[in-house]
């Protein structure tokens, strides 16, 4: 139950997670990753999910982003309930409404920064001329105008993560999901990435959910959800 609901505010949540449960099988052992997680996120909110490793943070993010399906429970984004969608429709939701950023950047190594950022537009069948223009603008926005034709191997970690952020936001998604975005960067670079995300969150009004260990992120977000053993332990509001 989000605070918005508690306050009786007449705002519908952009993302609703209801009683999410998911268990992994590791060989013969069943590992419960999510054990009934319920929360809402409003449009434009910046939420951080904290928790020790193995607390189910990444699984939660995958489920929220439609990359993985829960065993039980329900996720809906922008009024679309994921459980009603087949794999193709879910891919379409990932393409249009969700942007992912990962700890290890996950750029396509053979493509230049520009082509990596353009990829979702290509998948969305945008004409090449238009998609190139948009990708260029996006790269400028994340401060990489002079790195457009570099391949990932020719860029620093921070630069690669900026490309990944640009790629995640190129399709104007409703929700931006990041899994340890600063986890593979040094403190300074990590801080730059945090600031970039904060700036973009304010500028575009998109919803950000970031799974992290990084205390620096905690400084900037609206709400922190603490996860432990697959359940929400505490929720801390920072701003209102």
């Amino acid at each position, binding site marked *: 139950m989000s605070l918005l609901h508690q306050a009786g505010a007449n705002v519908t949540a952009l993302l609703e997670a209801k009683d999410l449960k998911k268990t992994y099988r590791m060989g013969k052992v069943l590992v419960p990753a999510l054990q009934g997680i319920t929360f809402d996120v409003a449009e434009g909110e910046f939420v951080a999910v904290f928790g020790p490793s193995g607390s189910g943070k990444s699984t939660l993010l995958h489920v929220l982003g439609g990359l993985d399906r829960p065993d039980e429970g329900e996720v809906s984004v922008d009024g679309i309930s994921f459980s009603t969608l087949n*794999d193709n429709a879910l891919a379409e939701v990932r393409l249009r409404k969700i942007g992912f950023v990962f700890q290890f950047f996950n750029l396509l190594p053979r493509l230049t920064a520009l082509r990596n950022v353009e990829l979702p537009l290509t998948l969305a069948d945008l004409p090449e001329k238009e998609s190139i223009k948009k990708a260029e603008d996006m790269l400028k926005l994340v401060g990489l105008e002079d790195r457009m034709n570099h391949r990932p191997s020719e860029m620093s970690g921070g630069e690669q993560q900026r490309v990944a952020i640009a790629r995640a936001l190129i399709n104007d998604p409703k929700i931006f999901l990041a899994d340890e975005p600063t986890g593979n960067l040094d403190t300074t670079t990590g801080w730059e990435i945090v600031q970039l995300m904060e700036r973009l969150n304010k500028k575009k009004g998109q919803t950000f959910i970031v799974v992290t260990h990084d205390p620096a992120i905690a400084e900037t977000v609206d709400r922190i959800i603490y996860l432990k053993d697959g359940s929400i332990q505490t929720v801390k509001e920072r701003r209102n």
Partner: protein
Amino acid sequence: MRLKRMLSMAWESMKHRRLRTFLTTLGVVIGITAIIALASLGEGFRVSITERMEQGFELDVLTVIPGTLFAGMREPFTNSEVANVRNVSNVSAATPVLQIGGVNLYNGDKNVIAFVGAAVNFTEFAEKVFPNRFLFEEGEMPEQIKNDTLIIGYKVNHPNETEPAFAHPNDTVKMAVTIFGNYTLTANFTVAGTLEKTGTSGLTNFDYWIFIPIDTAIKIYGNVADLIFVKVDDPYLSESVAKDIENLFPPYQITVLVPLSFIQQVNSILNMVEIFLTSIASIALLVAGIGIMNIMTVSVMERTREIGILKAVGAKSRTILTMFLAESALIGIVGSLIGVPTGYGIAHVLSYVLSGFASPQQNHVFQAPEAEQATIAPIFSWSWVIIAVIFGIAICILFGLYPARKAAKLDPVEALRYE
């Protein structure tokens, strides 16, 4: 994703793995090359054989034999039977032949043997049934049926090319024929003319024949004809004319040899040989297909993470499937486009080499004068090109399907975790 983008991405990815792409494509090239080379050579072989047979056979001349292979021989044809055959529709001419075997000819102290002595109405035989076939080396065709005249085939007159001819026109030649075992019949003939080489006709070679007037033979033997040559208006009517002629006689009394159906038979056998050769070549393409499957499976494994990224970004399974199929298809397209000209090139080289080996075997009896050098020229055919290219691409897509499906079915979360 648009097909153009898909193909350009596939192309990029293939360029990235140059050696692997080259080797995989090479397999397809070899397969297509083998198919095209064997098909074009096979086709060339078939056409060359058919042409030679058509040169040898007079396609519009049927041979009627008094008897059948299994029911045995009957008595020779009578005059009225020959007339009946002549009256069958679509028959333009029919001429009776009375064959006399093992003829010895003497001209002074010179002696030659003719395999076949044929008693014919020479005017009808040479002008109506086999027009333009018989050219005279010396002398000329008798004006009308003149008794006791003789026309000598080239090989009879020239048993040995280096020695002078056996006889010349107006020589008087003694003919001796052994009949009824030990009784020898002799008669004198005046040579009317000697023939040039005629080449093969059907199963015989007129160069080894001598011709005497049929009336003379009837006087000696009493029979009319043990063979009728029938000329039809159109070779493609020969089957039906043959049927009509058979119907003139009681069942199993005669045999009509139809050269066209013989050629068609040989043609269909050669066709089968061609298809057989091509299917063997197709095995090479099949092996190439398995190579593609192998390489693409490895490629899918190597690119598992990449596939995970694409799926996370929003690529549908179908898009991933098409991306990998596009790579297989490109290998097929490139391989086929290289394989087709290579195949024709190799076919030409092979035909050149083979022609060198297959210098004409001197088969005296069946030698056709105009086809002395055996050359097999590969034949280019668009239909084979299209079949080979479609087959090549189809094999590549078919064998690319399994790895592509494997890629499309990958679970995105697991694919992203893959190291």
